[in-house]
């Protein structure tokens, strides 16, 4: 490509005094990862591609549905049933062949997130659930990548930038400084349940693309340590300034290996979370918060568990004893191999619908084995 055609496409922004070829070159060099190619992701992707961001990653494990088309403007009727990430990349490549797209048709989790995110400079959060939001937030905090946050519901949206140091004070904040604890899923409706005005994610996603362009090129003042709330019905914007919370330091995974062990579905109480936790997750949870532990084995069963405190209620007496059980804290139930404890968790869920009770997967036997494996592993974990 000749010099002139390379710049011709972007000529209208290059002629801006603050922008110029310098900012354009920064965009060419930049790598942006868009997490979620839905209502927020579509407009963000369109404008980032149009602006000439050199490398764009798209993560989405979903396929296009008819009810997406009211707001997810990259897709058309004939795309229904097709994977979003690939479909979006194909459309965008046609819009702007200069861009290199990486398609990640996967569900982001704590095992794959760091290695994926590491390759990019800026992240766009276009996710639609709390578990993935906390996951993306924590990963970008650990890897020190600026995260452009966006969220919508009904007629309101929020946009902001996390993990970007203030130029004067060097202060950096993240989503946990705004919302330290995720809401109970039953009390926080999603767009599927509560609805969303189609144009709203268009506005918020476009604002996210704007913030990413500002961060990459250094023009203007990004929404650092700030989120802006927008109401489409009243046309009001309202700013919230965020300050570091003490709680964040103790609740966010401290390093890469702690992050990999963190169970975000469990943390956010997602509907899809299983009724079981692994020994590693159990250990992590015990250090993180106050939980109640119940042993449902008979009195003389071995091995003994003397490493943590628990109450003992043999399964045969569990039904009668349930009236004295408090559901104030999360409850972890264990037995020998994890079968009786699952039954007890089922009973707890029936008696206290929505209570946070889980069974220790593989029972105390698996936990003891895990302790052995942890204590004999050489200290060479990659982090």
């Amino acid at each position, binding site marked *: 490509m000749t010099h002139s055609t390379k710049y011709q496409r972007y000529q209208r922004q290059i002629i801006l005094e603050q922008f110029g070829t310098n900012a354009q070159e920064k965009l060419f060099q930049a790598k942006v990862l868009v997490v979620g190619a839905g209502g927020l992701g579509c407009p963000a992707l369109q404008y980032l591609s149009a602006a000439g961001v050199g490398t764009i990653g798209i993560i989405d494990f979903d396929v296009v549905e008819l009810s997406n088309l009211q707001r997810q403007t990259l897709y058309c009727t004939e795309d229904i049933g097709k994977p979003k990430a690939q479909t979006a990349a194909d459309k965008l490549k046609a819009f702007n062949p200069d861009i290199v797209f990486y398609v990640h048709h996967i569900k982001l989790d704590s095992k794959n997130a760091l290695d994926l995110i590491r390759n990019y400079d800026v992240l766009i959060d276009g996710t639609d659930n709390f578990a993935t939001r906390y996951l993306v937030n924590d990963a970008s905090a650990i890897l020190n990548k600026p995260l452009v946050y966006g969220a*919508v519901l009904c007629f*309101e949206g929020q946009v902001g930038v996390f993990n970007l140091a203030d130029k004067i004070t060097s202060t950096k904040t993240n989503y946990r400084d705004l919302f330290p604890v995720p809401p109970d899923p039953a009390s926080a409706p999603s767009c599927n349940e509560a609805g969303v005005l189609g144009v709203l994610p268009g506005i918020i996603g476009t604002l996210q693309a704007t913030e990413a362009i500002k961060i990459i090129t250094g023009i203007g003042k990004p929404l650092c340590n700030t989120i802006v709330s927008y109401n489409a019905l009243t046309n009001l914007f309202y700013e919230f300034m965020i300050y570091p919370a003490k709680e964040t330091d103790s609740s966010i995974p401290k390093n890469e290996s702690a992050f990999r062990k963190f169970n975000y579905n469990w943390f956010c109480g997602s509907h899809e979370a299983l009724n079981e936790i692994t020994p590693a997750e159990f250990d992590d949870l015990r250090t993180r918060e106050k939980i109640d532990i119940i042993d449902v084995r008979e009195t003389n069963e071995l091995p003994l568990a003397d490493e943590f405190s628990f109450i003992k209620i043999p399964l045969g007496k569990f039904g009668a004893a349930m009236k004295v059980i408090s559901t104030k804290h999360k409850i972890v139930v264990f037995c020998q191999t994890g079968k009786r404890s699952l039954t007890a968790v089922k009973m707890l869920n029936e008696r206290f619908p929505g209570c946070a009770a889980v069974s220790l997967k593989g029972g105390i036997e698996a936990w003891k084995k895990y302790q052995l494996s942890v204590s004999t592993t050489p200290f060479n974990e990659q982090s």
Partner: protein
Amino acid sequence: MEINLLSFGQVADIIGKDPMKLADVKNTSELNRYLAKNWPMLRSIKYSIAVNKKIIHEDTLLQHEDTVAILPPFSGG
């Protein structure tokens, strides 16, 4: 002494969309108690509080004419 109360998202659905004025609320914990008492549905909702646009993490004294905004998280995308 009087403060202005703004609410967002689900909180606005519960307590009303229009800004309101509250008298004699000394600090943000008193405000939380007042809200929970008058709108019990708020007890199951997590929200953050901003006093004059600054998100607070601890109980904060309120002054005359302060604007307190109540922001619940939402996750749609």
